[in-house]
C-alpha cells in the first residue's frame, strides 16, 4: 500500500447519480487484486469537510493503459465531491488496501458471482481476472430499478452468461436476484461463489446456502476511519471457533470474509 496522487483520466456519469471515475496509476494496476479498495481524500487541500477518507472498491483495471476505475452512487458529501472532478484533476488516495481475492489460490474452474446494486463494482473486476485465467463465470446481478442498465453491455462484452433482476422490472426480469439463486442453486453447487451487496441480500443468501451446506465468500463494507487496520472502527461481528463471536476489521481482516461466518444484528 502506498499514498498516491493519481490523475483522473475520465469521470463519467453512467446513470442517475451513478458515476465511473478512471484514474491513472501504474502502482495500483500492477498491485491490486479483486476485492481490494482505495481510500480517497474527498475534499480540497486544507479543508476538512468531509473529514475522513472514503473507501471505494476497485471496479476495473486496464493493464495496457495503467488505469483503474471506481464506480459509485452519489450519496453524501464525499461522493458529491468526487462526481464534480474532471479529467486531469489529481486525487489523493491510499491503496491498494484490504485482503482481496488471491487468484493463485483458486482451483475451481466454475464461478458464480452475485452482485446487489453497487456491489457489482468489485465483482466486475474479479470476473475479468477470472476470464483471463480461462475460468467459467456466471454473473447474477440484482438492482432496485433501471439505473444500472449499462451493466448489460459491460457483461456482454465479457461474453459470459449472466442473469439480471430488478425489483421494479425496469432492468432484466422482475423480482429479487436472491429468488433466482434460490430456484437455481442446485445448478451452482459445484461453483465457487462470491457475493457483494447489501446486508438484506447477504441475509437471504446465508439462508439459501445454509440449507444446502454451500460455502460462499462475500465482500463487506463499513464506515472506516484509518483504512489500514489501526483504529478498529470498521469492525463486524463474526462467529469464532468456540461458538462465540469476534469483531474483525473490514479494512484489514477483510473486506473478503466467509459469508457463513458473518453475524448480522436483527
Amino acid at each position, binding site marked *: *500500500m*502506498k*499514498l498516491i496522487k493519481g490523475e483522473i483520466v475520465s469521470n463519467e456519469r453512467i446513470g442517475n447519480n451513478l458515476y465511473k471515475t478512471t484514474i491513472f496509476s501504474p502502482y495500483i494496476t500492477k498491485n491490486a487484486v479483486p476485492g481490494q479498495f482505495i481510500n480517497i*481524500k474527498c475534499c480540497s487541500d*486544507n479543508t*476538512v*469537510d*468531509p*473529514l*475522513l*477518507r472514503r473507501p471505494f472498491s476497485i471496479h476495473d483495471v486496464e493493464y495496457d493503459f495503467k488505469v483503474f476505475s471506481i464506480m459509485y452512487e452519489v450519496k453524501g458529501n464525499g461522493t458529491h465531491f468526487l462526481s464534480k472532478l474532471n479529467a486531469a484533476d489529481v486525487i489523493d488516495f*491510499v491503496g491498494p488496501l484490504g485482503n482481496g481475492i488471491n487468484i493463485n489460490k483458486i482451483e475451481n474452474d466454475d464461478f458464480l458471482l452475485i452482485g446487489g446494486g453497487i456491489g457489482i463494482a468489485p465483482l466486475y473486476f474479479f470476473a475479468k481476472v477470472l476470464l483471463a485465467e480461462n475460468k467459467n463465470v456466471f454473473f447474477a446481478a440484482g438492482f432496485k430499478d433501471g439505473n444500472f442498465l449499462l451493466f448489460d453491455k459491460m457483461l456482454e462484452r465479457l461474453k459470459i452468461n449472466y442473469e439480471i433482476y430488478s425489483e421494479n422490472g425496469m432492468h432484466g426480469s422482475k423480482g429479487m436476484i436472491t429468488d433466482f439463486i434460490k430456484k437455481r442453486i442446485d445448478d451452482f453447487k459445484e461453483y465457487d461463489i462470491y457475493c457483494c451487496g447489501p446486508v438484506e441480500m447477504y441475509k437471504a443468501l446465508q439462508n439459501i446456502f445454509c440449507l444446502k451446506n454451500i460455502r460462499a465468500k462475500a465482500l463487506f463494507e*463499513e*464506515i*472506516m*476511519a*484509518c*483504512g*489500514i*487496520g*489501526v*483504529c*478498529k*472502527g*470498521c*469492525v*463486524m*461481528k463474526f462467529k469464532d471457533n468456540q461458538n462465540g463471536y*469476534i*469483531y474483525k476489521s473490514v479494512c484489514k481482516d477483510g473486506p473478503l470474509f466467509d459469508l457463513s461466518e458473518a453475524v448480522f444484528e436483527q
Partner: protein
Amino acid sequence: MNSNDNPGISVKLGSIRLKNPIVMCSGTFSSGIEYNNFYDVSMLGAITTKSFSLKPREGNKPPRLCETSAGLLNSIGLQNEGIDFFIYEHLPFIKRERFNTILSMLGSDVNEFSDLAVKVRNIEENLIAVELNLSCPNIEKGGMSLGLIPEEVENVTATVRKILNIPVIVKLSPNIENLPEITLRAKNGGAEAVSLINTVVGMAIDINTFKPKLGNVTGGLSGPAIKPIALAKIFNLHKEKILPIIGMGGIFSWEDAIEFILAGSSAVGLGTVNFVDLQAGKKILDGIIDFMNNKNILNIGDIIGKVKAG
C-alpha cells in the same frame, strides 16, 4: 534542516526528553508499525501506543464510527489484544526500528493497573514513558470513570509509579470540571506530565430509524470540531503550573500545533489527523520547524504558553 539535527526543537516534560514535540495520540497510530509504510516514524518525538489492558478486550458493539461536522464520533471501546500481544508482536519491531514509544496502559481498577505494571516492568527499558488512560469515555469500568475521582487518580498513578522506573503520564478527560485538582492528584501520585484532552462525550441520531448512530449510544468526539475546547482547557490548566502538558484535540495542521504550544502545551498530540493524512506527523513537524526559522525562534520551549492573553 533535518529535525533530528535541530536542538531547538527538542522539549522536556519533567524527566521526559523528546527530540521534537510531535507525539502520536493513543488509539490513532496503533504502535506505529502500519504508519512506518508511509514515512520513517522513528523521527517522531514519541508514539503513544493504543491502550493495552492485562487481558484482551473485544471492544464495543458496532457501529463504532460516525462522522459529524468537522468531527469524528467513536465508540471503539478500547478493543485490544492484551499486553502480551504488544510485548511479543509489536515490541520486537519497535526495538529494531528505534521508535520512541510511550505505552498506554488501561485497567478497570487499581489492581489491574498494578498487575499490568508488573508485566510492563520487564520491558520498560524499551519505553520512554507510560501513559495511564484515565479518560476514555467509552467503557463502563476504568477509563473516565476512574479519572473522575481525585483519590483514584492519585492512587492509580502512585501504584504504577512505585512499580516502574520510567516516567508516568496521565491522560485526562475534558468531560470533568475539576481538572486542576485531578492534575494535582496525578502529580502527587508521581506523574510527570498530563495528556489533555481525550475525546469529548457526544452523540448522533439517525432520524429515519430514531436510533443512535453509534452501537454504544454515546461516544467520544475528536477532530477539528473539538479544537477550541482543547485549547481553552490547556490554556486554563497551564496557568496553574502544576505539570507539563501534552496538548491534543483536533490538531490538523502545523498552525494548529503552534496554537497548542502557545496555549501552554510542551508537546502536541496528533490523533484523528492520522486517519486523514497518513504523513501528518512529518508534515506538521516540518511546518513547526519552518515557522521557527521564519520567526527566528531558536528554541521551541521559548514560546510554550506565550499566548498574549493579558
